[in-house]
């Protein structure tokens, strides 16, 4: 049995729709998307509100979580890099975790079987 992992992609709000479409095209459909705020090395942007200058440290981001068998890892990571990479800070990060178990509620399938159709 292959290992099951979670690939967590933090992306800019502007490109996540393309990414989802692209993943869809390569057969990755299961995913969970969350609206988050984040910062990495990307500097915040400088603003003013009613005369007060401030720096926004947290920028809007989109978190995409995909649980898949480990064999899909490279495919997904490469596709993501291809679509999201501009070379400037803020491009986003990918975090990978191990998952110990997956259960599909509808039909009680577990592990790999829970991820296929």
């Amino acid at each position, binding site marked *: 049995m292959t290992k099951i992992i979670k690939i967590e992609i933090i992306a*800019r*709000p*502007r490109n996540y*729709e393309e990414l989802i479409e692209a993943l869809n095209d390569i057969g990755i459909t299961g995913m969970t998307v969350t*609206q988050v*705020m984040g910062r990495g090395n990307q500097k915040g*942007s*400088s*603003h*003013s*509100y009613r005369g*007060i*200058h*401030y*720096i*926004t440290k*947290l920028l*809007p981001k989109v978190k995409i979580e995909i649980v898949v068998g480990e064999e899909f890892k490279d495919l997904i990571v490469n596709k993501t890099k291809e679509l999201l990479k501009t070379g400037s800070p803020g491009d986003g990060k990918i975090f990978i975790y191990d998952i110990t178990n997956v259960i599909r509620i509808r039909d009680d399938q577990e592990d790999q079987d829970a991820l296929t159709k």
Partner: protein
Amino acid sequence: MDYALAIDTIWVLLASALVFFMQAGFAMVEAGFTRAKNAGNIIMKNIIDLSIGSIMFWVIGFGIMFGLDIGGFIGEGSFLSIGSFEHLELSIPKEAFLIFQTVFCATAATIVSGAMAERTKFVAYIICSMAICAIIYPIVGHWIWGGGWLSEMGFHDFAGSTVVHSLGGWAALVGARMIGPRLGKYSKIGKTNAIPGHSVTLGALGVFILWFGWFGFNPGSTLSGMNVDSISHIFVTTNLSAAAGVVSAMFISFLRYKKPDVSMTLNGALGGLVAITAGTDIVSPVGAVAIGTIAGLTIIFGIEFFDKILKIDDPVGAITVHGLCGAVGTIAVGIFAVDKGLLYGGGFDLLVVQSIGTIMVFLWTIIVSTILFKLIDLTIGLRVTAEDEEEGLDIVEHNFEGHDILERRQIEVN
């Protein structure tokens, strides 16, 4: 004491207040039908076109529109609206007339902002507003309401389906076309994507406010509260046409898309209002229902036509609502006018005149605003960068983050 003078004056002033309030309606419709990240920018554009419009129209627009006629084309002009304007033979104080005309002008100006929303440079928009209020609108206004050549021909545009709405709509058409669609609106393989607005409730509030304001816009254009039969009649036809626009847009969207479309139905109300404006005083209630129904139909097919066929991206539907429905309504006067309309045995005369006026205003506006927008584009540029568009105009044009998901303080830096 002159009671008639007082009655007419308070009528016009209260109508002015109602027409003024339409600005709030436009702001809500435009903010509601676009994305949250641009709401602050839309608000700014609305309040600025109202303000700059009020000033520019007072400074030179009023004189151009209502000054002594020069060759049927333009008024003599008057700096700061000074002068007696006796040739107008007003039955109300000049200043009452000035404020009423000012809020009309601001209405014409604000139409453009909706069609160009979410991607236009703020400074470019300001310049475009100034040109509309100072020159483009007053000249057409002179033709039709200021004693110019169209009014001489017997062209009937009672409260401005053409003067105000079509003019605004056609300028919007030029602007939206030249600036191009919002990022992501049309895909490379030719698909048309939807970019839903962020608040249908605010959009609907805007429509109700506009409908309310129209009870100043149309009946106020009699410039006389003494004219009791006419103003009563105008209330009835205005309301029926709006209602028919709603019902018609709702049913057609129901048939075409399987479900009644909320935003099309809301646009239907506006289409009905715009269309009835030209003939509200001289069509019957039945005629008003007919005009509103046609407007509802125009809304559905017009919006689809501009969006899917011409691929001109108009986030709020301003081109169809104001340009197309204004033109349709103006021409419809030639058909439905109880007096000289085609259907009432009046022959084609009025219909021809109405069509000529509609077409001439279309041509004038298209040409002049093409020049205007081209000039702006070549100098300061019309459009924000793609980066900025994606980030949202609130942040890039106004340093303003109004729509965080987290409640946050923003810590001062020096």
